């Protein structure tokens, strides 16, 4: 096995079984990350490596230490898959196989989480057992797209591992030019602001698109994120192609009693300075020491409801807003989702079906009009929101823009 950096301070050694020779090689730089109050991933890795004596973990630690020393990454991508699927696994092979043979393979299974990231211990224990059996034992909870990332397995073990967890109700998530894993906020399970059932919709939509998740066939990636209200706790607007944001369209519900209590507790100044004066559309005002809401001018930012959660809640007429085209930096620079459908009622199954049908129309438009490696937000920017709306049959409304155009450069009929 490869030994490196003999002159390391061997901090890692300290945890070695007293007397006995340490299973791990010295990783002086990594060991620096065992210090300090925040939980250390290095300590976790080393502890597990020593217990399980998995050589893959040792090899990965060695290569990572080397990356720290040389400031370079040494993984290269490839293709690894399970029967019938084309994605869901990020293949990693070491570029330094001769130097770190134990790190030769380190593939990752992206596993779809349960909506809202809710678990019972049995689900997780079974998953841990399967993963310790077939893989490295290293799990990311969760990846930024929401996947449970089972990190570190050899290609030979992949199918068996998948079959085992699949029998426990787990399925792979997305990778490549495919529908991606979704994220939903905790929603109605534990949040008073939820305007629709984020968990149910997440489950329904991602199950419907399971085939597109497993077999890449899009121009590029497509992500759903489900937030129960405009606080957007799932970061849908900047981090998904289609953000589903809870919305209401009648008046904010006011509990007068709770309101009075809140005001006497927090004081009038706090009400004026931190609630009324922070309303983005100045829809709040003060009248005889009470808060008055001009609901027609409320832009549903959530602020007053957030601050006075005991006294205020979203109205009774609840549903969701659909925003489209968010993504991060690559190529064109980050862009946020654009408001496309301000209010969509979501109560029964038929509403869910309507939602899915609309999503499909949108994705079909993108697939037939977009370029390779072009996110839908880029396609809309290139072809124009007008062309998109015509393509999917949605009406243009002022809600879609912060202001109408300020240049005359469009084609009128003649």
């Amino acid at each position, binding site marked *: 096995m490869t030994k490196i950096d003999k002159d390391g301070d061997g901090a890692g050694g300290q945890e070695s079984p007293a007397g006995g020779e340490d299973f791990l090689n010295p990783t002086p730089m990594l060991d620096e*990350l065992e210090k300090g109050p925040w939980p250390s991933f290095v300590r976790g890795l080393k502890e597990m490596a020593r217990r399980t004596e998995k050589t893959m973990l040792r090899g990965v630690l060695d290569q990572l230490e080397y990356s720290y020393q040389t400031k370079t990454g*040494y993984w290269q991508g490839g293709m690894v898959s399970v029967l019938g699927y084309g994605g869901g696994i990020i293949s990693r092979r070491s570029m330094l196989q001769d130097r770190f043979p134990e790190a030769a393979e380190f593939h990752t299974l992206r596993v779809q989480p349960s909506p809202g990231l809710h678990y019972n211990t049995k689900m997780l224990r079974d998953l841990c057992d399967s993963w310790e059996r077939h893989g490295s034992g290293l799990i990311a909870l969760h990846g930024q797209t929401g996947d449970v990332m089972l990190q570190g397995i050899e290609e030979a073990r992949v199918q068996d591992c998948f079959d085992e967890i699949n029998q426990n109700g787990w399925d792979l998530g997305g990778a490549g030019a495919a529908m991606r894993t979704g994220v939903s906020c905790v929603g109605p399970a534990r949040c*008073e602001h939820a305007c629709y059932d984020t968990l149910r919709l997440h489950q329904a939509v991602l199950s419907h698109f399971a085939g597109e998740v497993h077999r890449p066939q899009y121009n590029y990636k497509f992500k759903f994120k489900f937030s129960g209200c405009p606080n957007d706790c799932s970061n849908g607007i900047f981090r998904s192609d289609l953000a589903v944001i809870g919305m209401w369209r009648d008046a904010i519900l006011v509990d007068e009693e709770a309101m009075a209590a809140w005001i006497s507790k927090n004081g009038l100044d*706090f009400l004026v300075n931190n609630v009324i004066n922070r309303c983005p559309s100045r829809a709040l005002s003060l009248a005889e020491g009470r808060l008055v809401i001009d609901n027609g001018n409320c832009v549903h930012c959530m602020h007053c409801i957030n601050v006075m959660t005991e006294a205020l809640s979203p109205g009774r007429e609840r549903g969701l807003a659909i925003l489209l085209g968010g993504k991060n930096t690559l190529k064109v620079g*980050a862009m946020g989702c654009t408001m496309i459908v301000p209010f969509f009622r979501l109560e029964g199954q038929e509403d869910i079906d309507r939602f899915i049908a609309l999503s499909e129309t949108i994705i079909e438009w993108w697939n037939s009009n977009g370029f390779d490696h072009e996110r839908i937000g880029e396609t809309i920017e290139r072809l124009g929101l007008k062309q998109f709306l015509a393509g999917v049959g949605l009406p243009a409304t002022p809600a879609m823009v912060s202001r109408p155009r300020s240049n005359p450069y469009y084609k009128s009929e003649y």
Partner: protein
Amino acid sequence: MAMKREWQTVESGPHDYKDALHPVVQKNYGKWQYHQMPRPGVLKHVAQGGDVLYTVRAGTPRQDSVDLIRRICDIADKYCDGFLRFTVRNNVELMTPDEAKVAAIIKALTEIGLPVGGVGPCVTSVHHTQGWLHCDIPATDASGVVKSIMDSLYDDFVKWRLPSKVRISTSCCAINCGGQADIAIVVKHTRPPRINHEKIGRICELPKVVARCPVAAIRPMVVDGRQSLTVDQQKCMYCGACFGACPVMEINHPEHSKFGIWVGGKNSNARSKPSLGCLVAQNLPNNPPRWPEVNEVVGRILGAYRSEGRPWERLGEWIERVGWSHFFKSTDLLFTEDMIDNYRHARMTFNQSAQVRFPQRHER
């Protein structure tokens, strides 16, 4: 292998969540009334019917060992009827209707080394990415940066010492899988990809690579008889998009990577519209294993926000109120010409007005 396999894949999608919900959650599903924050790290949700649910939140390394996950499960079994959840920011949440158990849960989590906090006006766990541990284009190691930052910000996680929520993200290349945040710590490759002319023709679809470049910096070229590509060193701004299409566009480099810090990113719609982070520090060294220079700048930014921000005012909202010039002064950061946008919509970021602030005598 597919031969002796009798299991038939079920394309089930997300794992079913029904039996993952605590009974109190099931009962009050969609019926929550309001919440309170009895103490740092703890949420108290009250349902219309009067039911109460306490949530204890704790930070994790995100890159978890099965050992750690099993320990967390032990606690959930002991105090939470076998239920738990994780947050979108890699924190774990243990819930119980029984106020008495809250202290015990906090104690148990602390014992296994997990800090309780991240709720309310404080720093919460960092959105981070793969880095040297797993990705193929990382210029640094995300987990290591996060560990270093959070060691310094530990008190800001477990205590309430800030005007409002502070979201931090860190990413190991400009692609920024970590996303927008109040403070985004993003490393950047700082030189154009180098091409191995022998390999590229064999491994990559050259036209696809050419098409991938947002600034049309890639042109076909023949190198000793072989079809290859060339990169216009003037145009290329090291975005790495071509590497995604072709690993031979070698963007990784031991020397040429630097950190930048972006502030004012905001995802919520509360008060101000969602906003992108803006570059306020650049060319910080990529200095493992502890990245002290990056750490120091983050501390300075938080310090200024801590003393000047108002309740509920997010970092970017504070800056909008006091002005960018003041921000650079009070954080002692240097505004450079590279911080003036020069990309597609640069014009829209220019100050097309006479509205400007001047420090007053006593401030100068």
